[in-house]
């Protein structure tokens, strides 16, 4: 079988899985899986760029995804004027003082020598820290005191506010779309800082460094309430697509739904999800096209040359560290964009739900299973593994129900078996990863 035919069949198979889900579990579920699958495919593209193209081992995907989510709040929510006057500028001044301290320390360490250097560094650190905390803490306290139950944070940049029609129903707000590139920028900024410090190190160290930074990003998002309300979550993010309730009250929409033989409720939920699907598919196709262009350009060939033999590439005059930094930033930015898209889809930012197993290691399973080094493989892996991740739980439950059907109701073993179905996901994902690595290490669509 030639590769093109095989790849088409593989994608057709994934399509068939989704269509099958639509027939068995309803089109709402199928579209839900497809939408998150598209987002996952974008994340997988980002990781594939880093790992497949350049051999960089980034296991901090979760952090970049979360930064994308943060961007949706910073862009999409209306600013909280009271909080800004209560301490907004003070917090920013505090953070700037913190940065100034770091700059001062770096400067002192360059200028001074010997014992003066050590003493100067310590003195600058202590003085800087005390001033920073004094300014920053007061500002934070001011912001967080502003109506903590509903705001207590600075809000975002969306001064145009929620749009409503004549009947006071919510309308789509396209401003939030700006959050997607913004998410990419935030993630790129973080990636630049990490890359500058950790990329010169060995691959295992980079792995630990990215794992650590991801945990720190989540810790910051959970604890800095002034930024995005921490674990109190930000709900009601604006949406770039029509709201279901608004659609259901639109006579024109009800009539059109009826002509398809659908009730307004189902029709509106499916319509909204389809709008997201179109938006996500556009982003995915653009990024996929760019990634393909990059892969087949001289730049892409250079990247793979560096990956396969760093020393030889360096001898040919390639700046390995700079190229690594470049691709690390690009890949992380893509993860950030995907993270912003995901939070937009959810309509809320919940820092407590970011878990490394789900947002870092699952993405890795997608890339490896799809085929590292191949963009189409990453996309295929993204959708396929996401489908599996969602479906394993009901499938496990069904399996356990069949297996335990012979046992008496209420018996301890039976309850144990039914309960354990909830943990099927991790086990299955691990097995899939191990089996693919062992028997088909190049993945479903191997690198050409």
């Amino acid at each position, binding site marked *: 079988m030639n590769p093109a035919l095989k790849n088409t069949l593989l994608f057709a198979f994934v399509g068939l899985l989704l269509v099958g889900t639509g027939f068995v579990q309803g089109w709402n579920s199928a579209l839900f899986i497809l939408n998150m699958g598209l987002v996952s495919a974008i994340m997988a593209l980002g990781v594939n760029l880093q790992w497949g193209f350049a051999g960089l081992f980034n296991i901090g995907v979760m952090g970049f995804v979360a930064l994308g989510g943060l961007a949706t709040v910073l862009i999409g929510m209306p600013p909280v004027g009271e909080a800004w006057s209560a301490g907004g500028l003070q917090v920013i001044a505090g953070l700037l003082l913190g940065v100034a301290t770091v700059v001062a320390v770096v400067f002192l360490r360059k200028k001074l020598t010997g014992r003066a250097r050590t003493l100067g560094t310590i003195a600058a650190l202590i003085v800087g820290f005390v001033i920073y905390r004094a300014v920053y803490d007061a500002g934070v306290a001011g912001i967080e005191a502003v109506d903590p139950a509903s705001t207590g944070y600075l809000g975002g940049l969306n001064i145009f506010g929620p749009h409503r029609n004549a009947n006071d129903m919510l309308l789509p707000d396209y401003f939030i779309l700006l959050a997607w590139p913004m998410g990419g920028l935030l993630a790129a900024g973080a990636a630049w800082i990490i890359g500058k*410090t950790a990329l010169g190190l060995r691959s295992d160290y980079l792995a630990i460094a990215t794992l650590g930074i991801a945990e720190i990003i989540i810790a910051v998002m*959970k604890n800095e309430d002034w930024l995005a309300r921490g674990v109190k979550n930000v709900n009601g993010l604006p949406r770039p697509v029509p709201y279901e309730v608004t659609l259901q009250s639109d006579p024109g929409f009800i009539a059109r739904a009826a002509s398809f033989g659908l009730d307004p409720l189902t029709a509106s939920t499916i319509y909204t999800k389809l709008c997201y699907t179109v938006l996500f598919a556009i982003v995915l196709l653009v990024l996929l096209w760019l990634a393909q262009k990059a892969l087949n350009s001289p730049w892409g060939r250079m990247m793979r040359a560096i990956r396969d033999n760093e020393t030889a590439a360096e001898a040919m005059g390639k700046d390995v560290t700079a190229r690594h930094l470049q691709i690390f930033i690009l890949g992380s930015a893509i993860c950030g964009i995907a993270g912003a898209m995901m939070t937009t889809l959810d309509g809320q930012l919940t820092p407590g739900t970011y878990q490394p197993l789900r947002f870092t290691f699952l993405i890795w399973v997608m890339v490896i299973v799809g085929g590292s080094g191949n963009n189409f493989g990453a996309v295929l892996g993204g959708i396929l593994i996401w489908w599996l991740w969602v479906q394993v739980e009901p499938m496990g439950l069904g399996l356990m129900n069949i297996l335990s059907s012979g046992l008496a109701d209420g018996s301890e073993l039976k309850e144990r078996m039914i*309960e354990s179905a909830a943990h099927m996901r991790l086990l299955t994902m691990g097995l899939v990863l191990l089996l693919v*690595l062992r028997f088909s290490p190049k993945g479903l669509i191997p690198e050409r």
Partner: protein
Amino acid sequence: MDFLNALVALANFVIVPGLAYGAQLAIGALGVTLIYGILRFSNFAHGDTMAFGTAMTIIGTNALLALGITFGPLPTALLALPFGIGATILLVLLTDWLVYKFYRDQKAKPVILVIVSMGVMFVMNGVVRFVIGVRDIRFADGERFLITARDFKEMTGLREGLAIKTTQAITVVVAIIAVSLLFWFLNKTRTGKSMRAFSDNEDLALLSGINPDWVVKVTWMIVAALATTAGVLYGLDKSFKAFTYFQLLLPIFAAAIVGGLGNPLGAIAGGFVIAFSEVTITYAWKKVLVYMMPDSLEPDGLVQLMSTDYKFAVSFAILIIVLLFKPTGLFKGQSV
């Protein structure tokens, strides 16, 4: 008197918890460092190996309690520890035979083994959840305190109390025993010496007739024992939860790298460095400073450098600082 009070407060809130946590991290980091030294990859499944060992020990503890057997004032889990270690040894040997051996024979790149260990991590995490669930489990029984804050105050007449939990004392004692046994094994026995030879120079060790399969098997057994011990001690001291053990991976790796990957002595030092930095930076120093400073200078705030939620940031920051200035760690470790 104030000085003594300050000292006792410091011991109570910083030194004792730091020692216990440091010992737990050190034993965990020893496992990571041994795998790195002998099998030459960073084992991401280590946290879940610890969780599996602890889960098995908890099951053993429950069985013993059901039979009416307790360990007097000490936690029953210590009696069940050998059972947990045995089960974990079986699991890691099985994993090695089923999974890692293939890649070793192929001489796969270390990074491939790291990804493989990610798969193993997923599976082990799933197995632990199957076996014991995701709830928070406390399994420490026996006496809770070696000395309570109240007794200490009555004994010494100081205003500050010093409480030492039984689990903290046990942690330190068990850690000392485990580390001495390990070092005796590595330095005095034939197998231990061949392990060190294998770690230093694989080709030379093979040439001189060392059986690599045996070395690898023994390494896994030791690592399983260390991981289970570390996991049980941590669980006794705090509580058992599958997810927490996964998160321990970061401080443990930080400890192993700070000390120098592949260097057992470094792993121990690294464990204490990380533990004490975490505790001192997230501790509210007000209590100690109130005793030490003249009244006019008493601090208003808690004098906490960072909130406890940022303890990951501390291990991470130390890791980065050490890596930037001493890339092979405080004690000379290996680098690939």
